[in-house]
């Protein structure tokens, strides 16, 4: 066993406090001589880089977009959780911790999740101080809303653009450090290799995407904040450029990959409309606050939604889960939608959709608005108008987005939605200090396997990314770098840099020289189909075994028949994409291997062989209460190491939202 999670001893409540007061520190004069490389400038990367810059480290940031502000975090809609208990509804650090552990189906580390809950409140304070314009009540105080899987209101938000506002806050803090000279920013740069010297991460090879030049950068430590890998499915709610390359290079250099099969399929996305589809669009979970989900009670009912009378509608979530209703966690809601569609009750042209209906919310809000305005006996039309106004103020941008994409007006007809790949709970294995199994190499944000176990609750990714970046890494990195103060910057003509650059160069040359017949895009689509059909919302042994063989064959075909136009010394997006798809073709196989290994259902990982009579996920705690951390030993050769999960405080039970 080489994995040591380094969880501090002592009471759960005291672990982080004790850690902070006993970890090693680096004095200001020494910080100026320590180089830190931060790959990725989403919430995790931007917050980390800004904080480390403020502390006095010499920081370099990298991102593949043209500006840090464009990272995929910008697209987060619904909100960010924090245990502030501003609503006085019984929230607390413990409750946020408990909800997250339970929501993750008892597959996350208690100590990490507790720390997350502890720092959650500081995040909101920090963001408000930076000028993040969260939604407020008339009294001037912050507003909250509910999200799935919890019974308190702890989600802070800025309309349907929470990720944008949080990222702009972190981006501005980062740009301030750039202006002060503490951070050097490299945009349109892609990191393509980790450089290891004497077992420690000491730098990277990055490609300048504009000129095609390969660059060597030294760092005393390297932080990967490179986001999730949902795009292995081709269609997902992730931005087009989101990819696994940085994490995968790290994996091949010795970093274990944790729980790769844990994928979150989000229940409310705009359904696929045809083969041309390039991505899927999320309709925020916050819509389940007020919207009701239903399908017709009769199979194959072809009537228009508004022609189906109330008593002929099946509000299946409210029926199956009366306690949480439409606000059950994502994995539960997604499977329930799939179950209805597979059983023949789906709606729309493809029959792969269910309704998300706002009509009763519009009337409810309309009536209360009429009341507030003192209108007695308002007409139906008046109520509807007033109600629409309220809904627009809360969710206007989402409704608009829906209309732009589908051409239908969701204020008048229910939205059609279907689950889609959204988030990856799996990622690089990290210890309590966020260090991977390679010394000096860290992973933050969605890139690590982190705090969400087998299923992430809504509004928790933003919380985790910012917790990692603002409040965890500033301490844990110091604990490592304190022992590095005598390490002089290593010149980049060191043989490790030369070798790493050569391997990157060789691979680029190879990709360009195949000159086959099939486009990168086409390979990506084919991989996505295999993953979605066999390693998606429901998985089984036979399908996974087939998928592994199919992916291996597809990968072989890719390396024989892909066509990458253009050259290496220019701006060449096809070449960038080719490298990313090549890595997805390796990751996909590992995801299937992991899913096959895990003979249980938990959270987002649903193995059809393991379900209760009512179709709920059935865990096998006696056999699988562990983190599956995979070590790379060569192509198609992965070795499983287990990190056992111990629950000292929460007692795992069958998750129930009934």
């Amino acid at each position, binding site marked *: 066993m080489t994995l040591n999670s380094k969880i501090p001893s002592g009471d759960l409540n005291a672990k982080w406090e004790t850690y902070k007061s006993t970890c090693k520190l680096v004095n200001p004069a020494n910080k100026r001589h320590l180089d830190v490389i931060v790959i990725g400038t989403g919430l995790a990367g931007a917050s980390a880089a800004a*904080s480390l810059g403020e502390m006095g480290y010499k920081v370099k940031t990298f991102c593949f977009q043209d500006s*840090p502000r464009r990272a995929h975090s910008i697209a987060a809609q619904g909100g960010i959780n924090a245990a502030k208990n501003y609503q006085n509804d019984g929230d607390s650090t413990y409750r946020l911790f408990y909800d997250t552990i339970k929501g993750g189906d008892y597959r996350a580390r208690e100590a990490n999740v507790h720390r997350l809950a502890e720092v959650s409140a500081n995040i909101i304070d920090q963001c408000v101080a930076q000028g993040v*314009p969260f939604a407020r009540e008339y009294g001037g105080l912050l507003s909250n809303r509910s999200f799935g899987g919890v019974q308190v209101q702890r989600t802070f938000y800025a309309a349907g653009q929470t990720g944008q506002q949080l990222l702009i806050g972190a981006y501005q803090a980062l740009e301030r450090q750039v202006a002060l000279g503490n951070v050097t920013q490299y945009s349109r740069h892609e990191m393509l290799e980790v450089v290891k010297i004497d077992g420690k991460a000491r730098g990277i090879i990055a490609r300048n995407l504009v000129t095609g030049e390969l660059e060597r950068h030294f760092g005393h430590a390297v932080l990967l904040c490179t986001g999730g890998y949902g795009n292995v499915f081709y269609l997902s709610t992730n931005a087009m450029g989101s990819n696994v390359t940085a994490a995968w290079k790290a994996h091949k250099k010795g970093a274990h990959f944790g729980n790769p099969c844990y994928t979150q399929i989000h229940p409310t996305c705009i359904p696929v409309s045809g083969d041309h589809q*390039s991505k899927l669009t999320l309709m925020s979970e916050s819509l389940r606050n007020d919207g009701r989900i239903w399908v017709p009670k009769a199979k194959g009912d072809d009537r228009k939604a508004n022609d189906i009378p109330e008593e002929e509608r099946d509000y299946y979530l409210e029926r199956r889960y009366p306690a949480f209703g439409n606000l059950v966690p994502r994995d539960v809601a997604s499977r329930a939608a799939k179950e209805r569609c597979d059983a023949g009750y789906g709606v729309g042209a493809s029959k792969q959709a269910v309704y998300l209906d706002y009509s009763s919310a519009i009337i409810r809000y309309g009536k209360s608005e009429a009341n507030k305005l003192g209108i007695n006996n308002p007409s139906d039309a008046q109520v509807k108008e007033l109600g629409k106004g309220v809904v627009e103020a809360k969710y206007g941008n989402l409704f608009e987005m829906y209309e732009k994409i589908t051409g239908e007006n969701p204020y008048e007809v229910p939205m059609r939605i279907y689950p889609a790949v959204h988030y990856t709970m799996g990622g690089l294995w990290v210890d309590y200090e966020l260090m991977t199994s390679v010394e000096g190499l860290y992973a933050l944000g969605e890139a690590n396997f982190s705090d969400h176990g087998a299923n992430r609750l809504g509004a928790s990714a933003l919380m985790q990314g910012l917790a990692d970046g*603002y409040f965890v890494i500033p301490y844990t990195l110091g604990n490592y770098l304190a022992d590095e103060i005598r390490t002089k910057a290593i010149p980049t003509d060191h043989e490790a840099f030369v070798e790493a650059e050569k391997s990157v160069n060789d691979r680029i040359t190879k990709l360009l020289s195949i000159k086959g017949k099939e486009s990168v895009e086409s390979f990506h689509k084919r991989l996505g189909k295999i993953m979605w059909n066999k390693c998606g919302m429901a998985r089984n042994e036979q399908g996974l075994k087939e998928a592994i063989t199919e992916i291996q064959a597809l990968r072989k075909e890719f390396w024989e028949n892909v066509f990458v*136009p253009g050259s290496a010394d220019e701006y060449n997006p096809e070449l960038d994409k080719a490298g990313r798809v090549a890595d997805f073709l390796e990751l996909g196989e590992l995801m299937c291997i992991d899913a096959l290994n895990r003979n249980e259902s938990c959270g987002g990982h649903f193995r059809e062989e393991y379900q209760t009579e009512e179709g709920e996920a059935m865990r096998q705690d006696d056999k699988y209460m562990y983190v599956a951390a995979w070590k790379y030993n060569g192509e198609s050769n992965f070795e499983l190491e287990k990190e056992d999960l111990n629950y000292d405080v929460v007692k795992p039970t069958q998750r129930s939202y009934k």
Partner: protein
Amino acid sequence: MEHYNMNLTLKVWRQRNSKDTGHFDTFQVKDISSEMSFLEMFDVLNEQLVSEGKEPIAFDHDCREGICGMCSMVIDGQPHGPWGQTTTCQLHMRHYKDGDTITVEPFRANAFPVIKDLVVDRTSFDRIIQAGGYISVNTGNAVDANSLPIEKHDADEAFAAAACIGCGACVAACPNASAMLFTSAKVSHLALLPQGDPERKTRVVNMVEQLDKEGFGGCTNIGACEAECPKGISIENIARLNREYVGAMLDGGSKNTI
């Protein structure tokens, strides 16, 4: 929604790099579904080019949800195309009909040099933010969030300004290639909040100075920026910036160190 297929003629700007002079190329695309987004139509075109062994057209995009600000095409003379308050990536093909010809160019401005085809360099926007588009608060310095109540109206107005996605359509739309709308959105966002108050004078002066340095044109109140802005950023923000600026200058201008 009824859907249909169409054949189109596309005139697209091609330019190898910033030194190349560039030219239009004409392409035919067939069987484009009215359900596709404008960029999915470009995906089809690019797949077609790749299958012919040719180089696809380079264009910027990422989120395809209208929020990252990466996409940036001038479509038939309009930045982000014909739909109001809509980014290029959210424009859908049901706007077009069979037989249409569409002309596509990059966002043009001296301060946005072309990198390739439809891709331009907008790092000047980062430098404008670096000049002062932030509140100086280090991690860990914050007080409890609710200890500072902010009037809902001000918070909402600050949010409306902060909704800018930094796309640069305002610059592309402006005959002077001015970046005033973008800059004023940030100045307003921070000036409307009490947290932004301590630095408001130096902020506006430094940001405007940077604007000039980057080679953006001056603002002559034409209003094309507001008309083309995909996020409905109001030109009122420019008036606020001017007030802030005049106020700061009357106060002796800025001698700002950050």
